């Protein structure tokens, strides 16, 4: 089970990207009200109950990038996070569910904390590092690229880069492509997640265009948010990004992963995201090599729901270890 849930599928070919083509951007058509309607009705159209709900929530846990990205992070704080990611749910509950080895998808930390995290997880799950002048992405490109290289050298298997929003807002897609491509090159073997900061892109149309350009530049994942924007992951944005992934896949044959981040804190919301994912991209994406939740407080709510499932009693927060 550990192999199946945590390791990337060896058959999954990595997205190498494609040359920049302005047509990728020009072909984008987004009808905002229709997107809102679809996103607004998915929760009413799909309902997952009982054992299925427990299994789906466990699946959600296995795809969480358990995250701490605070100015007051310390090595001990990061070690505690890693311990939680390796044992995300109380052992008796996991026994009850028949999923004793359940772990989170990865831990996600600042570059400075990568060595501590790498040491703490000891290869059992990947360490992801946010990089490139996170969260604003406005430090000099030279430094942003060096930051990636340092994190990779320190053992990060995944790099969450932030894109330059100004290139999107000014329509300079070539510049966005070139910069993202350079970051992808700097990542080397590490997988690159491109954070679009969708809350700062102004329109769903820009979200779709930026998604396409980042995938063309070789992103392994596209990710909504840093968690620091005013608006983070939403269902409409997720729908647009999932459909961009689908179109890119139809064009290139490559599967690109999706990571909504920030603002998903309820178990019920996690199920809605997975329902949308299953409908729009398909079952293959319901695995940690193609989907992650960027979240910190979601796990706590899921733990309480799982305790209810196993025991039939509603739980309290203090009954579950903090991360």
């Amino acid at each position, binding site marked *: 089970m550990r192999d199946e849930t945590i390791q990337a599928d060896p058959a999954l070919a990595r997205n190498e990207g494609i040359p920049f083509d302005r047509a990728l951007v020009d072909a984008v*058509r987004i009808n905002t009200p229709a997107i809102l309607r679809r996103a607004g009705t998915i929760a009413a159209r799909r309902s997952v109950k009982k054992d299925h709900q427990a299994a789906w929530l466990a699946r959600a846990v296995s795809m969480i990038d358990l995250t701490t990205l605070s100015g007051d992070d310390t090595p001990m704080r990061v070690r505690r996070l890693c311990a939680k990611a390796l044992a995300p749910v109380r052992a008796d509950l996991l026994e009850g569910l028949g999923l004793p080895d359940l772990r989170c998808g990865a831990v996600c930390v600042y570059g400075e904390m990568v060595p501590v995290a790498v040491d703490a997880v000891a290869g059992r799950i990947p360490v992801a590092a946010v990089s490139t002048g996170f969260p604003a992405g406005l430090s000099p490109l030279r430094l942003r690229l060096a930051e990636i290289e340092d994190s990779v050298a320190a053992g990060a298997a995944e790099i969450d880069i932030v894109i330059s929003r100004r290139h999107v807002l000014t329509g300079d897609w070539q510049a966005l492509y070139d910069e993202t491509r350079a970051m992808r090159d700097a990542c080397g073997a590490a997988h690159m997640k491109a954070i679009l900061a969708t809350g700062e892109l102004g329109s769903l149309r820009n979200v779709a265009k930026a998604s396409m350009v980042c995938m063309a530049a070789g992103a392994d994942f596209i990710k909504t948010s840093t968690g620091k924007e005013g608006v983070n992951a939403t269902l409409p944005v997720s729908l647009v990004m999932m459909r961009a992934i689908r179109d890119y896949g139809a064009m290139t044959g490559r599967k690109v992963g999706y990571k909504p981040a920030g603002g998903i804190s309820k178990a019920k919301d996690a199920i809605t995201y997975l329902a949308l994912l299953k409908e729009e991209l398909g079952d293959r994406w319901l695995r940690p090599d193609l989907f992650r939740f960027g979240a910190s407080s979601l796990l706590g709510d899921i733990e309480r729901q799982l305790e209810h499932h196993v025991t039939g009693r509603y739980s309290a927060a203090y009954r579950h270890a903090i991360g």
Partner: protein
Amino acid sequence: MTVREVFDSMDWGTAPESRAEADAWLDGHGRAFGHWIDGKRQAPGDAFDVLNPATGEVLARVTQGTEAEVAAAVKAARRAQAAWAKRDGHERARVLYAIARGIQRDARLLAVLEVLDTGKPIREARDIDVALAARHFYHHAGHAALLDQTHPGAAPWGVCGQIVPWNFPLLMLAWKVAPALATGNAVVLKPAEWTPLTALAFADICDRAGVPAGLVNVVAGDGATGAALARADIDKLAFTGSTEVGRILRRDTAGRGIGLTLELGGKSPYVVLEDADLDSAVEGLVDAIWFNGGQVCCAGARALVQEGVADAFTAKLRDRMAKLRVGDPLDKSTDMGAMVHPEHKARVEALLARTSGDVHRGTAPDGCFLPPTLVTGLHGADPLMQEEAFGPVLAMTTFRTPAEAVQLANDTNYGLAGSVWSQDIDHALDIAPKIRAGVIWVNGANMLDAAAPFGGMKESGFGREGGVAGLGAYLRPARGPRLKAPAPRRAASGSASDPVDRTPKMYVGGKQARPDGGYTRAVTGPKGTVLGHVGVGNRKDVRNAVEAAEKASSWGSTTAHLRAQILFYLAENLSARRDEFVDRVAAQTGTEGAAEVDLAVRHLFRWAAWADKHDGRVVGVPMGGLALALNRPVGVVAAFASEESPLAGVAQIVGASMALGNRLVLIAPEHAPLSATDLYQVLDTSDVPGGVVNILTGDHAELAPHVAGHLGVDAVWSFSTAGISATIEREAAGNLKRTWVNDGRGRDWSAADDSPWLAAATEVQTVWVPFGV
């Protein structure tokens, strides 16, 4: 399956809604239902089985309504109606509000009952059927409260017979009952025999909401009960159902002077332009054709896709179809439930068997289920492009240009609804109103709301439900005194004083045309003086005039300002020839003619004024964007003019028709046609484009069946003294043209009573334009 196994498979599992409460309700009634008449549940009589189509189980036995039971219900309604109409708007509003609250209170029971009875998925019953039914009563509680201000002096019809279909039993009940009660009518409702349960449950809600006994009656039964209701002593009949049955009802009610509105079938186009958001357009089709298993009159059943994106669109659509879940209607994750009845499933399959297209099917369980189905490679003549399937069957074809999309969209006898998908505002808003259908959704499908008028053009029926336009269907038009047939006139001996023959011809396409039959007849004054001769029109003259009118279609899209200018000019030119027209009116009527001519000038001026003032409205639907109720011209109007007012009456007809963008075939007053024929020259000198007004002379009774039977005529009005109202209504059934007949009643031709004219000369087209966040 263990949690561990689902963790790997990530299946949906099941999420069944409980049916316990609905079963308890059915058991509480012994699973046997009589009608609800005069506020009391009647004992069950001869009954038929009501099935759950998803399982085949018998849910209950429901009584087949007899002629006597229908009559008893109508009688009870009659008793209750007078007092109800006298209540003030606020009091009626409170009762409607109580019904809305009652629906919300019983929402879950109603939703589950609807699922058991129809096989539709619980999500739809819960989020759409029941929610919109409550919304409809809320909205109409408001109309009741405001009616004195919005429609001062308006009177209800009285007793309304209402026949609703099986696809949205409760929602269609709400669409019928709410406006009827709001305007002061009483109701006898017949639910469909396959799905009578929620109507019977609605009786409980009425009871608790303080609906007076007899105001709402429910008589169950099949088509025979419906026919009995149509024959009964009702004042108005409202029907939602098939075009075939609508036609029968049109014929059977002809000449009775009762109101009739019909909401019938459709084969609605779903146009996808190359600049559309294709994924959203695919998802829109899920709502357009797989909503309620395609058993929706306004289903987007014909996908018309621009050639350049057709392959990509089809691929996306087939992927989406594969993800639709067909099965247990009570499961909250079911997209498509059962077909309503095995007989109906067989009808859909029989139509599908006749197509020559390539059929792609999704999957569905055994039993009364059908899979989502796409049929490609079709051309216009395929039965699937023309006939209503009323099932989950999408017919698809391609087009090259936006103009061709419009042409294909309109290549149907129906005109209920349509969708246009494009991210280009120019394309989308250009095409939307060119589709001749009552409801158009720009970048959407099947959006419905109580404030947005809904109803068809062409053979999809007439009348609107919802909004202000929908109230008109439940208000009785003012009626004048009974018309006396004109005294027969005998020509005195001798001939016309003018030895030169000036027999006017027909006026067709802006030119004078000899009558096809080559016969003329004398026109005499009241004393028998021969005033002249006119041609005797026949069916070929009708054909020629309609053809000319059809060709003048650009009149409907010209600017309102231009139409106003031409009408003002027409009035001015008539005024300039006042003396001549005064003499002619006097000679024909034996009255002093000046008043009639001055009145005609006034009427034309007034209609010139209306040309750019009969505005539509922006409708307050709960959606970001705009829903517009536009007043569109009816098309080709044929009108029989009245002897009562040989010039002013003609001016009313010409003015109303022209001002609102219609083309007219006017049949001159039978015995006093010369003022109408004198108008030829005035029309010629007033820049009226050829074909916009065509004038025939002849015998009204002789011409009526040909005019009303002509499939190119969209509306027939009759103000004739000849008793042709019944003939017109009966013959109009052919293409379900709109009729406005006098039922042998006169009218005050000096009145500026414009609202019925405005209503008759236009049809509301509701255009939904969602936008924004």
